């Protein structure tokens, strides 16, 4: 398969993640959609790494995985803290910090 197929698939997955963030209200599903977008980026990185024939893009992908794990841990910690305070788990209700 040519590299462009992977790139088109990656942009399709990224657009799906954006769509999920726009239409869903639950912070947990929004975190999952962030994962989708990060993974789309990972796919593009690995595809470009194969295109150049150089392994450095794969190192980038591994670092992106680390960043994604950190984001998940902090995000899920926030969700647990919100749940403990009996606040609604809905991003439209959690708008106190909005100016």
């Amino acid at each position, binding site marked *: 398969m040519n*590299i462009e197929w992977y790139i*088109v698939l990656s942009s399709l997955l990224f657009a799906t993640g954006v769509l999920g963030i726009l239409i869903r209200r639950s912070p947990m599903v929004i975190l999952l959609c962030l994962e989708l977008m990060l993974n789309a980026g990972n796919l593009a990185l690995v595809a470009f790494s194969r295109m150049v024939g150089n392994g450095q893009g794969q190192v980038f992908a591994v670092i992106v995985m680390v960043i994604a794990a950190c984001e998940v841990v902090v995000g899920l910690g926030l969700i647990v*803290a919100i749940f403990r305070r009996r606040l609604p788990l809905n991003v439209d209700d959690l708008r106190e910090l909005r100016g």
Partner: protein
Amino acid sequence: MEAVVFFVAAIGALGGAIGVIAMRNPFYSVLALIVHLFSLAALFLLLTSAFVAAAQVVVYAGAVMVLYVFVVAYVGGGGESAWEPIPGQRLLAPLLAIALFVELSIAVLGSALKALETKGPEVSAGFGNPAAIGRLLLEKFLLPFEASSILLLLAAVGAIVLAARRREGEGDTPSKHSPSRLEGVSPSP
């Protein structure tokens, strides 16, 4: 053969992604994301990057998704309200997503990268295996590697501080399991 594997994995990845945003129950969304991650690992294998594929399965589909499943089981599903703060948000959002997809595709495919229409150069048998990635990480990218390990440590400490029970927090259920060793670290409520 390669095309068959690619299309099966691509359909799995796309179907998983659509499942994540379409499922009502967050638990099913997590399961759909696991399907998506396994399909992406197959795509990584097609791109001859074995280490990234293995890390994807072990770290993502293994560890991170277990964390998600635990939190979903703890917090529970719960339906989403149909209230829209922006009128017509559910109609505008797909249009924006399609526009973003078209824009990204034009930006990448319309670039002058001639190598996009090839399969990439011939690579040696060791391309993307753990030895090659490990050598790159420890020789060329040592500083990002160490920085990411510090970031992981910070995230773990931050998550403990965020999710730990507070001593006299408002709305918290008092529990005898309250971890006393975190009292010094937890911010005042």
